């Protein structure tokens, strides 16, 4: 997985694959995102090609940690396998998703 933050660090774009081996890297991303002043926190997934169940779990952890500090997370432009997994997992009930 690769990531790229917006200048104010309230938005991050992920690319490649989000799977279990990326969990340490994603932890860094989540910590930086949660420290940013933005609201909502935005994760751009337009360049993310694949996600596994561990990746879904990581996104849910960010959501839980954001809620603890009364912030929200929006997922932007999931596509392909990522979108299908979100649809089948009913992620639209858990996140704000911008198509």
């Amino acid at each position, binding site marked *: 997985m690769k990531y790229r933050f917006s200048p104010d660090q309230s938005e991050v774009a992920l690319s490649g694959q989000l*799977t*279990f*081996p990326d*969990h*340490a890297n994603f*932890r860094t991303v989540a910590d930086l995102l949660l420290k940013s002043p933005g609201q909502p926190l935005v994760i751009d997934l337009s360049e993310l090609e694949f*996600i*596994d*169940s*561990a990746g*879904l*779990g*990581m996104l*849910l*952890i960010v959501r*839980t940690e954001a809620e603890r500090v009364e912030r929200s997370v929006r997922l932007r432009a999931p596509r392909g*396998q990522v979108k*299908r*997994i979100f649809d*089948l*997992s*009913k992620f639209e009930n858990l996140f704000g998703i911008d198509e």
Partner: protein
Amino acid sequence: MLRFLKRATGRGGTIAALDKTGIERNRWAVRQLRLLEHQKDEVIRASADLETDGHGFGATCEKLTEAAGRQSERMSELLSLAAGIVFDGRSVPVDEVGAIFSTALDEINAKIVEVARNAMTMVYALERATGNLGKTDQCIARIDIINGKTNMLAINAMIEAVRAGDNGTAFHVIANEIRELSKLTKGLAQTMRDELGAVVSGVRESHAALREVANIEMSQNILARERLDQLVAALAQRNRQISAAADAAALESSAMRAELDRIARATISEERVQRRLRRIVDALAGAAADLSDDAESAAPHDASGANGAASLGRNQLKLANGS
């Protein structure tokens, strides 16, 4: 025929001419008689065939009607079977089966996601715990260092107390106490290190096991619902096709049965046809008798050939009447 004869004599023809005409008419009558006889025979044979074939055909129609009826019943059964499956003592339409599958798979997928979230939460937690345990180990190492220095300090203090002689007696006691405390601290630090080592080992094993769990690729299981949805949709589509085919077959079967019923009823009216044929035979016989009378009247009284023809006509008439 009589009118013909009257017209012939009225025109002043000779007896010979009359005789000649009579003979011709007589021959014509004989030919007509033969023709009538032939037609009557044909009608009688047709009537016999109708009776024989009609009975067989009627029986066949009845069997076909019964078979068509049974086929209709089976088609009705097939239609009810195609409508759905019996589950929990009630008939469930195939479309509803798909909805039941979807609901069950949604629940499974929600659990997969929840398990994945919990697994990752624990992975992160254990990684933090492992890091904290490492820091604790470093603390114990620092305690060891401090304890070593303390012990060295106590030893030096004891040496200095010995050098001081009697003045150093009290100081020697204190240095000895410090050394004892240092030994206790060292033992405690070792105990802590042993305990911490066991905890670290347990945490690392748990972390490794949890990594295995979290690393299980479940996305294909989530996507399985997609394939199952497609499968159920295909099954429902096939079921609709089967239902439509069975429905059409049932309609055709009913139409076939109705048609066979109609044919069977038409066959039953064979007796009516027989009666009509008998009337035709009677009519033909009547026509033959009339012809015979005409021939006899028209035949010359002294013309042996014509008389022969008239006799032939009478004989034919007898045949026509079946006597």
